[in-house]
């Protein structure tokens, strides 16, 4: 098909991504009578939100005393003071309303005997600004994400949201002034291309856990929205902050919950030593996630890892006995039996840190508007472009996300972005004319993969990228390691320019989809490793062995990585909340 024959469709709003953030926004818009298109590369209810089992935080005070201001304090502290306090206040204030909206729309939250929503305690939650443990997490058993996603999808169908299921978004489209006017997409089934013209576009494409070899993230989490934003000239913010969970199944990535160590499990090296006694003599196996992750890495690096390649350590649970495991940790037992063929009641589990959550992303304000620095203004909105959820950096998680705040983030800011879009649509009566060059660039990017001839395989380059990221931009960071990461990832990015796929058909050409996904991952990898190499301090998830302390004087600021010249810039943290005094930075001690 020639570029001139490509069909065009017009909508008020285009939403790319159909997880919780995208669907929450779509619903708000459809109910306000906007015409909404949702483009998703997989069927919407197969989005990664479905994997969020823990729940969402809201200060309902159903179990223990609580209020939004305590929730705000915990989130600011958890972020290691890199979170923007206006956005955090907004989120914590909005949380109860968002939970009640979900309750009214049929999400089956677990209940207390008195009929109120049950709330469980999670790490990092406190009463009275750092006092006793709070209980703030609302959950629908262990399937909260699934319940929310299905409820939102059904409501969107009823509200007549237009779904483009199994369509892949190649790039954002703009006019000559840089206003975002929609996207160039194609149908994965037929290969047919489509230009979606939209007065407003919302990116809600989720995280980028596939950057790393060992991750809890599904295969779909390839940072597509982040890649599109970079190519559209939007920098990515705070990409050096990636949350790792210490105990993933080695080589596989799936999570073994902290509950396993909470129940008395402990880590051992190849010599059978309880390794955490060396690194955290007091807290031992219950030390914080980053400490446990780095300890495992150090054991492996120093040759005390287990297995034929000495590339992991072991989590021992067998001393707890079969009855305790079956009663308290049945899910873990089944996971190990399924994926490892071992029963943790009899044998230890091989574990290694696993990449879990992307704190950084596309910079937005609390209305979901994508904001970029223009001359002396650090945050100028990009007209027509919004982002929400894990692909965005609003920034409520700062340097470290608290458990129970990710589902909250996607729902609060999906809704907030939609409300702003509704106002924008009132002032935007017509579709602006597109810059044809913008369409041509997206078309060329897609059709570059039609080229035949010799070239390296996408699969090999992806494998090498994930390995390089894990070894040089994982839990153990120093200048040497990160500089090596910059060098290695840059070299791998160069190789991708000459890669080829061996399929140039149109129908279900998933090789081409995977090549486009890898291009997105590659740009996000460069953003991550460049930002990490530049930040010479330890803060939250970015933990440097050569700069072990937080340095508020020089580094209480957000990183901004631009694709053009791989340039880094910085902007101040928004320390002024909406209505309450700021929480000044303090040592983060639990």
């Amino acid at each position, binding site marked *: 098909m020639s570029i001139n024959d490509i069909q065009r469709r017009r909508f008020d709003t285009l939403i790319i991504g159909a997880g919780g953030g995208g669907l929450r926004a779509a619903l708000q818009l459809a109910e306000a009578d906007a015409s909404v298109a949702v483009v998703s590369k*997989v069927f919407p*209810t*197969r*989005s*990664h*939100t*479905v*994997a969020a089992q823990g729940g969402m935080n809201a200060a309902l005070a159903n179990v223990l005393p609580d209020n939004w201001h305590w929730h705000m304090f915990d989130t600011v502290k958890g972020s290691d003071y890199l979170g923007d306090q206006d956005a955090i206040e907004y989120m914590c204030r909005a949380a109860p309303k968002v939970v009640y909206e979900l309750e009214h729309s049929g999400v089956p939250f677990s209940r207390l005997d008195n009929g109120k929503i049950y709330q469980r305690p999670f790490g990092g939650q406190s009463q009275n600004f750092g006092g006793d443990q709070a209980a703030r997490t609302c959950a629908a058993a262990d*399937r909260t994400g*699934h319940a929310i*996603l*299905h409820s939102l999808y059904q409501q969107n169908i009823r509200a007549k949201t237009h779904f483009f299921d*199994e369509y892949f978004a190649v790039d954002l489209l703009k006019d000559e002034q840089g206003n975002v006017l929609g996207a160039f997409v194609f149908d*994965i*089934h037929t290969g047919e291309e489509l230009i979606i013209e939209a007065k407003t576009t919302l990116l809600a494409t989720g995280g980028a856990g596939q950057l790393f070899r060992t*991750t*809890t*993230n*599904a*295969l*779909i989490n390839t940072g597509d929205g982040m890649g599109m934003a970079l190519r559209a000239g939007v920098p990515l913010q705070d990409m050096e902050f990636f949350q790792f969970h210490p105990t993933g199944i080695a080589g*596989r*990535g*799936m999570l073994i919950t902290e509950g396993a160590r909470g129940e008395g499990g402990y880590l051992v090296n190849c010599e059978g030593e309880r390794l955490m006694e060396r690194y955290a003599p007091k807290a031992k196996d219950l030390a914080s996630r980053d400490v446990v992750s780095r300890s495992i890495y150090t054991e492996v690096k120093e040759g005390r890892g287990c297995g034929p390649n000495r590339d992991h350590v072991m989590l021992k649970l067998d001393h707890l006995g079969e009855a305790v495991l079956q009663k308290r940790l*049945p*899910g873990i037992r*089944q*996971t190990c*039996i*399924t*994926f*490892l*063929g071992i029963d943790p009641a009899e044998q230890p589990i091989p574990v290694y840190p696993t990449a879990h959550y992307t704190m950084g992303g596309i910079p937005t304000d609390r209305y979901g508007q994508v904001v970029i620095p223009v001359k002396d203004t650090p945050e100028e909105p990009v007209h027509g472009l919004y982002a929400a959820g894990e692909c965005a950096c609003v920034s409520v998680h700062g340097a470290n996300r608290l458990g129970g705040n990710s589902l909250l983030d996607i729902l609060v800011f999906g809704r907030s972005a939609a409300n702003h879009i509704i106002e924008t649509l009132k002032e935007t009566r017509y579709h602006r004319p597109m810059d044809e060059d913008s369409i041509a660039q997206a078309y060329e990017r897609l059709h570059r993969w039609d080229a035949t001839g010799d070239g390296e395989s996408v699969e090999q380059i992806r494998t090498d990228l994930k390995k390089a990221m894990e070894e040089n931009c994982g839990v153990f960071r120093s200048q040497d390691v990160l500089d090596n990461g910059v060098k290695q990832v840059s070299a791998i990015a160069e190789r991708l320019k000459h890669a080829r796929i*061996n*399929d140039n*058909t149109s*129908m*279900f*050409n*998933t*090789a081409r*989809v995977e090549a486009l996904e890898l291009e997105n991952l590659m740009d996000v990898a460069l953003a991550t490793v460049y930002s990490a190499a530049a930040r010479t301090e330890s803060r939250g998830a970015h933990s440097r062995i050569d700069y072990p302390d937080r340095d508020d004087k020089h580094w209480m600021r957000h990183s901004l990585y631009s694709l053009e010249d791989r340039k880094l810039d910085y902007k101040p943290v928004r320390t002024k909340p909406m209505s309450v005094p700021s929480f000044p930075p303090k040592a983060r001690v639990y």
Partner: protein
Amino acid sequence: MPATADDSELRWRCRRGMLELDIIFNEFLDKAYSTLTHEQKDLLDQMLDYPDQLLFDLLLGHMPSADKGISSLVTYIRDTIRP
């Protein structure tokens, strides 16, 4: 050889929201898809329309399926991917 469109479509339907399901389906297709009977292929097709949470519960042994055919396919998948 490039994959056929049908093979690719099946693989794409196996892209799920949970890593555990991605791993199970991909390993199963690699190891055993060519050995499946028409009846088993139809059952797999039916199963791929299930919600992710239900697939997770079935394939990780958290609950059995009431459907005999699906139940036997689940057992076959679990046996095939077990290391």
